[in-house]
């Protein structure tokens, strides 16, 4: 019965018989007409999906689920069929609606417009080719608006399979025992099972698929959004390419790429053939997707076991979550976004916010899953637990085996999914953008009050911290401030600063407490903000400030550059660059003659070159994923850009507008360093990067690109998160802030030897909250004054810390605003320097004079003024500010650039306003 074909065997007789049977049947049934009515609706967790309303045809019709499903109904048709699809948009019925379309890349004909809420649109498909095709909405597809169209051959022939003895056997749809549609979206599989009788069963997220050994199973693997590779353990199948070569050996694979933006791959397997029964994992083989939960199981049961081989559905958007009782496991979804505040935005955040006061908090019962989708961002991210209930890490306590803490080695595009069983508070962040926060309370419905758990563990290595401690509640308060723009400080208003919290009782280690009363009593509320005031002595030149969260009318992405005239303390210009949809401008630096400002877009892939005089766009160029900081080399004016989402610093040679090469921040094969706020030594010999992912400061030879040293910071704590570098003007010392270790590392400027670690929270008691001296909680930028006397640290906990470089000790703490972030020095008129300090969650810049009387004693360092970043109507702009005016203060650079090494190269125009000692700061 076996005849050899191309070195293989094919069961030809069986196949011939099947072919004729199929041919006889299909030759009777000519092309069918399908009239399909779909609706698009909102699911209980706020995601969207398609639902089958009706499917009439003169051919066979599947048995569809009555509910909305993700993926949507699988549309089985045959080549040549007429397929009319009517889409009713009912997304407005359970919350705000969205426009929804129905697009099938390669098959759509005619109308492709989206239907507005309440509208109906008609679509038609051209079924001229066989295969499996994704259908989807164009704008909100990643929230669940996708499904599969399967165009089968007229005679029912489906993909051949590889039998256990190596023979390649052709197959007919009538022989299939079941089919699986598996969509790879973000970092999650969304599945549907189609039984032999055509019944479609939703399997939702990361399901356990099942089949009896030797059953024939067809997989339709599809993807929309970022690329994936599908792998199924212990099985192999044919890669049937379009341009198949019959004389070549069959291409047998077990991993297949699904390429962005939409792709599909269909194949048939004989379950367990050659390998037997077992639980075989399927997963995406992209490492970061594996680490973010993109896997499931195929359980192959033996015929003798008597087991039915039924698949088990995963957590679903219609399952049990807060406000939606169900007996099925539920799933909440966070959209990861470039939008200020709602960086992790629940898909039902708009409905929750009246209760939770934020769109970034979800509440679920134990056993639910949390799902993340990077659907509203141009950057790369990680999904990383910042804190979690201590018990969740302990497998013996029923925690998730190896899943908590949740993290990935490499930033990526995709999403994440994790099942949570232990009640308590979980806060997720992105390691690259560490103020992106999303929180989940896993609440045991049997307790009175929301369960925050007894103790939490922190990513920085703190274990078993009581939830009633000051540090725990301080972090909770930080979460509510950061994620809710209404809770930010508005210095243009005379109203007191009010922070809104949910009006709930929470259960902590000491029992049930009212959340608002606890937070208000510990941290106050309705506080009167200090008045704005101009410094008495003017500054020199301009201060360019990244008001990273300010929104304007003609672009979707946030962020402007605010140019402050330091002579008059008035705003000169707002630069939004709507023509490139400038996205989260984070840090900036001038070229030598100050004609060009280099601007990074931190949630994007671009570096933007801007004309200093006019604010006009010169060029927008791709430099890599999530560029954070930019600086020039003082001696040759090359620009260096830290590629925070990747593993290096790219170089743009002076006078050019192209990236030349990337200087790797680690050796080949090592974990990416993810450098953030680098600094360049005044002599141009060293580039120093704070490597957030590998907990070190990297010292690199600027000329050769070689690694000189990589010095661990944070005293061995697991995740100190070195984030910004400052350097002495004589290149002798390096200062590195450790965001999550709350410390300042002092290193030798040449070889990187660790000299000292200054604990910035030595005077803080994390349990009682008692503060007995200067502290700097969550320190970020840390420039050294151009004369080398002082380090100014902007600490996002709301402090400015001054360190004396002569002794490397803290000499002063000054108050700052929530999300205090950026700091940089500019010239003060007639000598001396100002440190300009910005805050993410306020709309002013603070001006600090570290040595007002110029006597070298820093103990009189003080705030000498603060200026609003909100522009009035008279300020020049290239777009109209629409919301979040003046917010998001981050990167700063003062022109003229007065740092040693750079100041000497200023043109006459820019150097003219400086004193002799400012032009030679360390002579």
């Amino acid at each position, binding site marked *: 019965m076996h005849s050899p074909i191309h070195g293989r065997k094919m069961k030809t007789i069986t196949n011939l018989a099947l072919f004729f049977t199929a041919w006889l049947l299909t030759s009777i049934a000519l092309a069918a007409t399908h009239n399909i009515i779909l609706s698009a609706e909102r699911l209980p967790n706020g995601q969207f999906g398609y639902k089958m309303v009706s499917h009439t045809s003169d051919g066979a019709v599947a048995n569809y689920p009555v509910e909305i499903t993700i993926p949507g109904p699988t549309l089985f048709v045959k080549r040549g069929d007429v397929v009319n699809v009517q889409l009713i948009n009912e997304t407005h019925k359970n919350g705000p609606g969205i426009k929804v379309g129905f697009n099938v890349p390669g098959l759509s004909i005619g109308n492709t417009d989206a239907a507005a809420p309440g509208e109906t649109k008609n679509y038609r498909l051209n079924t001229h080719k066989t295969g499996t095709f994704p259908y989807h909405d164009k704008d909100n597809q990643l929230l669940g608006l996708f499904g599969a169209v399967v165009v089968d051959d007229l005679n029912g022939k489906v993909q051949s399979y590889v039998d256990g003895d190596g023979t390649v056997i052709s197959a007919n749809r009538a022989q299939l025992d079941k089919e699986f549609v598996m969509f790879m979206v973000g970092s999650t599989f969304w599945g549907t099972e189609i039984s032999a009788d055509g019944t479609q069963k939703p399997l939702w997220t990361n399901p356990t698929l099942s089949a009896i050994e030797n059953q024939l199973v067809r997989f339709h693997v599809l993807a929309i959004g970022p690329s994936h590779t599908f*792998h199924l353990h212990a099985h192999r199948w044919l890669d049937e390419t379009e341009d198949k070569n019959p004389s*070549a050996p069959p291409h047998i694979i*077990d*991993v297949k790429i699904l390429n962005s933006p939409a792709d599909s791959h269909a194949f048939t397997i004989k379950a367990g053939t*050659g390998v037997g029964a077992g639980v075989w994992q399927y997963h995406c083989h992209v*490492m970061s997707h594996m680490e973010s939960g993109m896997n499931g199981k195929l359980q192959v049961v033996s015929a003798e076991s008597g087991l039915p081989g039924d698949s088990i559905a995963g957590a679903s958007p219609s399952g049990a979550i807060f406000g939606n009782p169900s007996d099925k496991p539920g799933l909440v979804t966070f959209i990861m976004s470039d939008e200020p505040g709602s960086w992790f935005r629940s898909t039902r955040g708009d409905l929750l916010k009246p209760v939770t006061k934020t769109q970034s908090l979800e509440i679920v019962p134990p056993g639910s899953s949390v799902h993340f989708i990077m659907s509203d961002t141009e950057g790369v991210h990680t999904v990383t637990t910042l804190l979690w209930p201590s018990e969740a890490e302990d497998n013996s306590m029923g925690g998730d085996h*190896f899943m908590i803490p949740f993290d990935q080695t490499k930033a990526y595009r995709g999403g994440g999914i994790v099942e949570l069983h232990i009640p308590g508070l979980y806060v997720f962040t992105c390691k690259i953008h560490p103020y992106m926060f999303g929180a989940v309370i896993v609440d045991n419905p049997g307790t009175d009050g929301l369960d925050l758990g007894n103790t939490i563990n922190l990513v920085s290595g703190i274990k078993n911290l009581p939830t009633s401690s000051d540090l725990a509640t301080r972090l909770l308060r930080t979460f509510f401030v950061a994620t809710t723009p209404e809770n930010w400080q508005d210095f243009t208003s005379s109203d007191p600063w009010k922070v809104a919290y949910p009006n709930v009782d929470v259960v902590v280690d000491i029992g049930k407490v009212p959340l608002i009363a606890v937070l208000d009593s510990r941290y106050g509320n309705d506080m009167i903000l200090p008045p704005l005031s101009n410094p008495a002595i003017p500054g020199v030149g301009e201060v360019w400030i990244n008001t990273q969260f300010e929104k304007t009318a003609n672009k979707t992405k946030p962020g402007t550059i605010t140019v402050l005239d330091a002579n008059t303390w008035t705003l000169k210009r707002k630069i939004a660059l709507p023509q490139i949809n400038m996205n989260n401008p984070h840090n900036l630096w001038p070229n030598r003659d100050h004609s060009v400002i280099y601007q990074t877009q931190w949630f994007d892939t671009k570096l933007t070159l801007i004309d200093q005089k006019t604010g006009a766009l010169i060029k927008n160029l791709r430099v890599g994923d999530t560029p954070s900081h930019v600086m020039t080399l003082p001696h040759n004016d090359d620009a260096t850009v830290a590629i925070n989402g990747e593993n290096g610093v*790219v170089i743009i040679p002076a006078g050019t507008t192209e990236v030349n090469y990337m200087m790797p921040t680690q050796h080949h094969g090592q974990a990416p360093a993810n450098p953030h706020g680098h600094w360049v030594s005044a002599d141009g010999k060293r580039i120093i990067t704070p490597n957030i992912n590998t907990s070190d400061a990297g010292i690199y030879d600027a000329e050769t690109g070689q690694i000189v040293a990589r010095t661990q910071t944070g005293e061995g704590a697991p995740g100190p998160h070195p984030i910004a570098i400052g350097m002495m003007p004589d290149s002798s010392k390096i200062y590195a802030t450790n965001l999550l270790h709350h410390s300042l590392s002092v290193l030798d400027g040449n070889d990187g030897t660790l000299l000292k670690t200054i604990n910035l929270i030595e005077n803080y008691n994390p349990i009682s909250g008692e503060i007995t001296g200067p502290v700097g909680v969550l320190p970020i930028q840390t420039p050294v004054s151009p004369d080398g006397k002082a380090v100014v640290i902007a600490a996002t906990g709301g402090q400015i810390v001054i360190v004396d470089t002569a002794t490397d000790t803290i000499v002063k703490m000054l108050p700052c605003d929530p999300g205090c972030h950026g700091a940089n020095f500019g010239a003060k008129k007639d000598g001396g320097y100002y440190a300009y300090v910005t805050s993410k969650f306020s709309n002013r810049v603070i001006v600090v004079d570290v040595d007002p009387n110029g006597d070298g004693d820093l103990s009189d360092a003080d705030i000498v003024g603060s200026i609003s970043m909100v522009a009035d109507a008279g300020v020049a702009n290239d777009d109209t500010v629409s919301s979040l005016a003046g917010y998001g203060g981050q990167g700063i650079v003062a022109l003229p650039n007065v740092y040693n090494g750079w100041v000497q190269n200023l043109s006459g125009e820019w150097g003219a306003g400086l004193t002799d000692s400012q032009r030679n700061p360390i002579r």
Partner: protein
Amino acid sequence: MRRKLSSEFPAGSVHSPGNDPTAYRRTTLSVWSIVPIAVFLLFFGSAAVAGNLHRIVMHADELEGGLYAYRMEYHEVTDKNGNTTNLTSRYSTAATIPGPTIVLEEGDEAEIELMHVFDPDNPKQEHVSLHVHGVHYDIDSDGTLKYINLYKDESATPVMSYTYRWVAASGTAGTWPYHDHNMNSHNGAEDKGLFGALIVNPASGEERVKISGTEQNISLSNIEKDYVLYIGDDAFWGMEIDNATGQQTPLWVNPTLTAQRNSYVRFHLIALGTNFHQFELKSYKWADPGSRKNINHKVLGPLEKHVFAVQATHSASYQDSAFSSALLGMKGDFIVAD
């Protein structure tokens, strides 16, 4: 540190440790007892093996800088007539990235014992495994944790080796990755250096090559060199096999590949990591497997493989032209000389 002993031993896993003393320093309580060939025959000798039977012992070693790598300890092969050949000298004596290339023929079986020689006090490193693609194996050779396979932890641990059985059954010809699946988490440390290639040569003994514009089948014995090129997120990792001697030479990162003019050479590309790649070998064309297409570049995602043979007629360069790969200098020369 676990001290569970023989009750958990997988069948056939007990084996002579060979001559690396470092491997056993920390494992005095374990039972790496010397077992004669009889035990081996007890388990495998009676099985009907269509091809050759390979007995392999590998180690997973820790390297500098947070990387790990596999090392070949021992490889012998017994043919159908019972003749046994020791192939161990073909391999590097050091751990390499990629790990040892295991070459089988369609029909062969391999029994691979993996030994764990990391820091036994680091609980995150308690497990290390071999998960192989493409070939047949039973559920206890999946190389995964119980969390995944709902059966058992299929790992070498500091106190216990683990033996995997791979069957290069008919229909499994091709080049397949093997990698760790169990260290640190249920995803393993494949991205930290624990990967290598398995080449299953077809029973037909032939490979397709384009010669003077026409695709032809040539005998595998005419292929002078095999290059294994793993495409990581920031570098190519190479290994060369001289088919005249079977000798394997680690080439490490972004290697220069050399070939005799007009000889036939075969490239085995496997991607690994998080990035997607665009491989190019400039001024060469080859057959896209299974397809009529002749190509000079190939898009590859993590753990996809791409195998092709060419006649080395002229020097060229290879590269990954994906955006960040190109900036990081992921390229090398292919030098063809007389």
